């Protein structure tokens, strides 16, 4: 994934800084609470939500389990409709392909639809190195790009910014990128949206190359679908002469009819709308309407590694609605940047360590960035059991074991930071297998209970810093059982 995030601190350190930022916490709390209630109301409107969710889960699972067949079908149908299909095994390859395609048009700038896939590959930075300027056109992406910031939410990358901060960014930075912010710009959302409209208009009208992702690719027809609100997507998808869409291989659905499920579940889950303002669907190229040349770049970049994990592969069902972020108590407090990835929140905590591996400090810490409360699973429109995958990934971090990285089978070494925990567990296993040892240990613990510290020393300190140690009873359970005959005769004198 993108080099932008190299050297990120592990989640706990990043989160510690973030939770001290009162403005950030206020912004996040306001935004997530606004959307939470609205999503619940939008979902409650449809009586068959559970059935839609189950159908979505099954369509995605089935597609993933036969992905090779469906990818070949996509290739055939897109090609038949006049598109050109490219395959990219990793981020570098995808960026190289896109840069080459842009160079071949002779252009030096592109307009972009908001796209997670190209965020993930760090496309803008790669294009900049080739002398190609990429303009983000989604309002939130524009705020992030102008502010030289990083995205902190899947749907609303500038969720960490409030209206006053956005106004300041527009005033200070728009001029350097094109049309400056209007005089006397205030912080009302309508005026800020108007400023973005004016700033981007000239770019849309002269654009020759558009770059997008896609929410869905229909295998049987070769149709791509982009779901959006502002109309910037429509601008980028229809006005340029060349369109390049970079799409993760997990975005495929088998049939046209499958869209009837996701077009009901996605808008309600993400923006809490019955339907988002604009959805564009295109199949290859159309004479006289829209781009004359269409390229589809199918992106792996860790997805096949994720697919190889029988528990973890369900993360690939994700349709990027971001409902799990909006309900997560950890995300609400720590914010998106702490996750050190373009995919923050609960889905990011299971996706990033699978796409990138658990080699870095931040990726090894992400499976722990959760209280396992399960709210994310409950709202997920494709029923990804995020807590299950989190626990599975914790196991992988602690114990190591077989995995697939870059298409190759590897055996991961257990993480070093968990040596003390592993030693404690080994000791526990040894003791539990020896009744005599266990009995002696328990009796000793009971007799010395007055002298037990309230926190653990040494490597155990981190554990007991946020938890109370369990009190040790005056008498071990097994002694009590033997003495009272299983509780039948409590009157028998206590041992001590």
């Amino acid at each position: 994934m993108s080099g932008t995030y190299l050297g990120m601190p592990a989640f706990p350190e990043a989160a510690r800084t973030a939770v001290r930022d009162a403005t950030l916490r206020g912004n996040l709390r306001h935004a997530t609470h606004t959307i939470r209630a609205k999503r619940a109301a939008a979902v409650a409107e449809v009586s068959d939500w559970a059935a839609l969710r189950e159908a979505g889960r099954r369509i995605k699972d089935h597609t993933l389990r036969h992905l090779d067949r469906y990818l070949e079908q996509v290739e055939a149908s897109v090609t038949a409709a006049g598109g050109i299909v490219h395959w990219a095994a990793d981020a570098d390859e995808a960026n190289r392909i896109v840069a080459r395609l842009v160079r071949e048009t002779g252009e030096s700038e592109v307009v972009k639809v908001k796209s997670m896939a190209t965020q993930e590959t760090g496309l803008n930075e790669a294009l900049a190195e080739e002398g190609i300027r990429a303009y983000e056109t989604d309002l939130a992406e524009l705020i992030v790009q102008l502010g030289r910031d990083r995205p902190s939410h899947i749907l609303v990358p500038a969720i960490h910014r409030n209206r006053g901060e956005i106004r300041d960014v527009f005033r200070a930075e728009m001029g350097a990128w094109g049309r400056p912010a209007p005089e006397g710009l205030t912080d009302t959302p309508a005026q800020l949206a108007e400023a973005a409209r004016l700033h981007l208009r000239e770019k849309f009208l002269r654009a020759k190359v558009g770059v997008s992702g896609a929410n869905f690719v229909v295998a049987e027809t070769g149709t791509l679908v982009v779901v959006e609100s502002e109309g910037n997507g429509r601008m980028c998808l229809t006005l340029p002469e060349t369109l390049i869409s970079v799409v993760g291989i997990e975005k495929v659905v088998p049939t046209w009819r499958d869209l009837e499920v996701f077009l009901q579940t996605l808008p309600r889950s993400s923006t809490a709308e019955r339907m988002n303002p604009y959805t564009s669907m295109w199949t290859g190229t159309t004479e006289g309407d829209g781009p004359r040349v269409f390229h589809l770049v199918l992106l792996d970049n860790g997805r096949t590694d994720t697919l190889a994990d029988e528990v973890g592969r369900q993360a690939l069902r994700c349709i990027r609605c971001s409902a799990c972020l909006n309900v997560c108590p950890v995300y609400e407090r720590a914010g998106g940047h702490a996750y050190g990835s373009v995919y923050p929140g609960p889905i990011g905590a299971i996706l990033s360590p699978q796409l990138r591996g658990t080699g870095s400090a931040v990726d090894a810490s992400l499976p722990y960035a959760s209280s396992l409360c399960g709210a994310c699973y409950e709202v997920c429109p494709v029923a990804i059991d995020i807590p299950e995958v989190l626990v599975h990934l914790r196991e992988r971090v602690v114990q190591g074991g077989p995995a697939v990285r870059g298409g190759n089978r590897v055996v991961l070494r257990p993480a070093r930071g968990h040596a003390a925990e592993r030693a404690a567990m080994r000791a526990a296993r040894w003791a539990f297998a020896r009744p005599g040892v266990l009995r002696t240990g328990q009796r000793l613990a009971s007799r010395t209970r007055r002298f037990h510290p309230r926190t653990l020393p040494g490597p155990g300190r981190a554990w007991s810093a946020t938890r109370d140690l369990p009190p040790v009873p005056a008498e071990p359970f097994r002694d009590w059982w033997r003495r009272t005959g299983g509780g039948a005769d409590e009157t028998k004198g206590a041992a001590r």
Partner: protein
Amino acid sequence: MSGRERVLGRVRRALADVPRDERPYEEVIARDYLREHGQRTPAKTADLLARNLADYRALVHRCAPGEVAATIAGLLAARGARTVLVPAGLDPAWLAESGAERVEDRAESTPGELDLVDSVVTGCAVAIAETGTLVLDGSAGQGRRRVTLVPDHHICVVRVPDQVVASVPLALPRLDPARPLTWISGPSATSDIELSRVEGVHGPRTLEVVLAGAE
């Protein structure tokens, strides 16, 4: 090895655990969900469409089939539109009563030229009541995708009841995926500032829908 072979090879190795004789798509995908939510008469469905369009800030006007021209003329006049973009194949009767100058959409019209036009009038392929959605497919009277995007004022005529369906599952079979499709639910909007919805960004900021049919 090409990118294609590498990716497909990885996919196949990753799926080594999937049995060859797994149940086919048709059996696996349970479609237990509803085709539409609730039973309604065509008139009630049209009411729902009007309500949901208005809920997302589209301006809805209802008229008899014979009053379309007068309704459109009134809307263009109220807007102060001096020019109106006419997509190929638009029913000429619809603009018969308007004094606005007609601008034909030609293949060589640039986006910059479209940007100078005040309004655009189109029909649609289908309208979805439950979601308040209009779908345009670029056939006669609907124009290329750009004509309903660049001008700031879009008037869309829906023939009631034959172009109205209740739900998304009932709309898809009516649409041809080979055509470029645009689904429109209200004027352009954004939720990007503090996750609150604001209408009016890059697409037409005013969407007016004429529901033409007997009340």
